[in-house]
Every structure is written in C-alpha cells, then in structure tokens.
C-alpha cells in the first residue's frame, strides 16, 4: 500500500479542490494528443484530430477528457485504496482498450504541466512532488491487472 504523508494528502486535496475538472481534463487529453500524436491511435472514432486547433475544439476530446479526469478524482478521494479503485478500469484498458501502460505515464506528466500552467507559483515543488507521486500511483494501478 502506498504511504501518503499528511502534507502530501493536504497538497493533493488543496490543488484538486481548485481544479475545473471539465476544462482541465479536456486540456490534458488534448495536449496528450498534440504533444504525443501517436496516442491518437486510440481515438480513431473521434473525428477531426488533424491539427492542434481541431483537437482542442473537438467535442469528443473534451467530453472524454472530462471523463478521464473525473475518474482521476476517484483516486484523489481514495488515496489509501487506489489499487482496488482502479482494478476494473485496469482490466478494461488491457482487455478491451489495449492501451500500452506507458501512455498512462505520458498523460500523468501532461496533467502535471497543465496544473503548473493554471496554478503557476502556487504549484510549488512540494505540490509537484505529491502530484507526480499520485499520477505515478494511478498509472501503476491502471497497469496492475494487465496480462
């Protein structure tokens, strides 16, 4: 089980409370598809992904981004039980979606950069530490049921 210090929990909760899940989720997913274009391979049904502008404005990207970050919120709410929280999603990403777990790491790093651009100096090094730890734990949990 992952150990979270009181400070880490506080930093995670405090940043999360200020996150606009819809906007942030949309931006993070859009950036994933823009910065690492090969990730578009999972979204062939999403329509126009031909340019950064198209991706940012794509309603399916926005909706899916919101879905993904909303799910991320489950980790924030269940820091002491992330493995169990994501067991089913892990199976889904392996068996149905066929997503290489490396992509979870990429999205995690992108999310950190989105948070940094929104919160600027408030996204302190200590915040970054706690959040990089969190995205790492989430990525690990999502990869855990792969077979």
């Amino acid at each position: 089980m992952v150990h979270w210090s009181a400070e880490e929990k506080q930093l995670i909760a405090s940043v999360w409370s200020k996150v606009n899940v819809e906007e942030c989720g949309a931006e993070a997913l859009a950036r994933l598809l823009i910065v690492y274009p090969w990730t578009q391979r999972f979204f062939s049904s999403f329509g126009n992904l031909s340019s950064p502008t198209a991706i940012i404005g794509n309603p399916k990207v926005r909706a899916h981004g919101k879905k993904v970050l909303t799910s991320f919120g489950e980790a924030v709410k269940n820091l002491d039980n992330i493995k169990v929280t994501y067991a089913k999603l892990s199976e889904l990403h392996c068996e149905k979606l066929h997503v290489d777990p490396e992509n979870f790491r990429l999205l995690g790093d992108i999310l950190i950069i989105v948070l940094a651009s929104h919160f600027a100096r408030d996204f302190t090094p200590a915040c970054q530490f706690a959040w990089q730890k969190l995205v790492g734990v989430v990525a690990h949990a999502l990869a855990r049921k792969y077979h």
Partner: protein
Amino acid sequence: MLTADDKKLIQQVWEKVFSRQDDLGAEALERMFITYPQTKTYFPHFDLHHGSDQIRSHGKKVVSALGSAVKSLDNLSQALSELSNLHAYNLRVDPTHFALQLLSQCFQVVLAVHLGNDYTPEVHAAFDKFMSAVAAVLAEKYR
C-alpha cells in the same frame, strides 16, 4: 523531427524567458531534486538546500547549454558534442529512464508556471520535442 514551425516556437519561447533564464535553471533543478529524489544521487557533492549557490550556478550552466542548443537547432549533435562526450564518458547519468527526461519534465513545469496560458499546446509540443532531441544527443555516445 523538429519542423520549421517547432523551431520558431522554441526560439520565441526562449526569447520570452531570456531575462529570467538563471532563475529558471535553478528552479528546474530544485524541482527535479524534490520531485525525483533519485536524481540527487548524481550530486552527492552538492549542497542541495533551497537557494544553494551550487544549484544556482549549475542551473545557469544547464540553461546556458540549452540556450546554445536553441541557437543551433539545425545541428544539435555538433552544438552539444562536448556535453555529449561528458555525459557518456564522465557523468554517465542513466540513459534508459533518463534522468534527463526527468529534468525535461521539470523544465517544462517551470516554463508552464512562468508562462501560464502562453505555454500553449503547440509550444508544449515543440519544447517537448526539443528536450527529447537534446536528451537523445546527450545519450548518443553511451555505447
């Protein structure tokens, strides 16, 4: 591969942060040491406290090298050749889960903190590519 547009964006971003370069270097290093403690293993001889002179001065060095790279986007191999030798034969920073990738992440976080919305997805993509290219050149001679 860095496109012409990427190169323009990289140069523009660099100009924007030029005056704060030295701060950015120190900040990126500090974030790296805090976020990825394993990177401290390469600096046992450093004072790694917040605001340390060694971090400031090393940050300046790193940023200055990146600045030369920005000026030589058409020939990174040549521009970074000395540094490439240094990293391969001397420093031998782990190239597989390259500590340099960790520094790249922290450098981008610092840019995002300072530029906010100006760190657009397009700039983000260009800069990420640039940092990858730099890391690749630095790892070129490892074996």
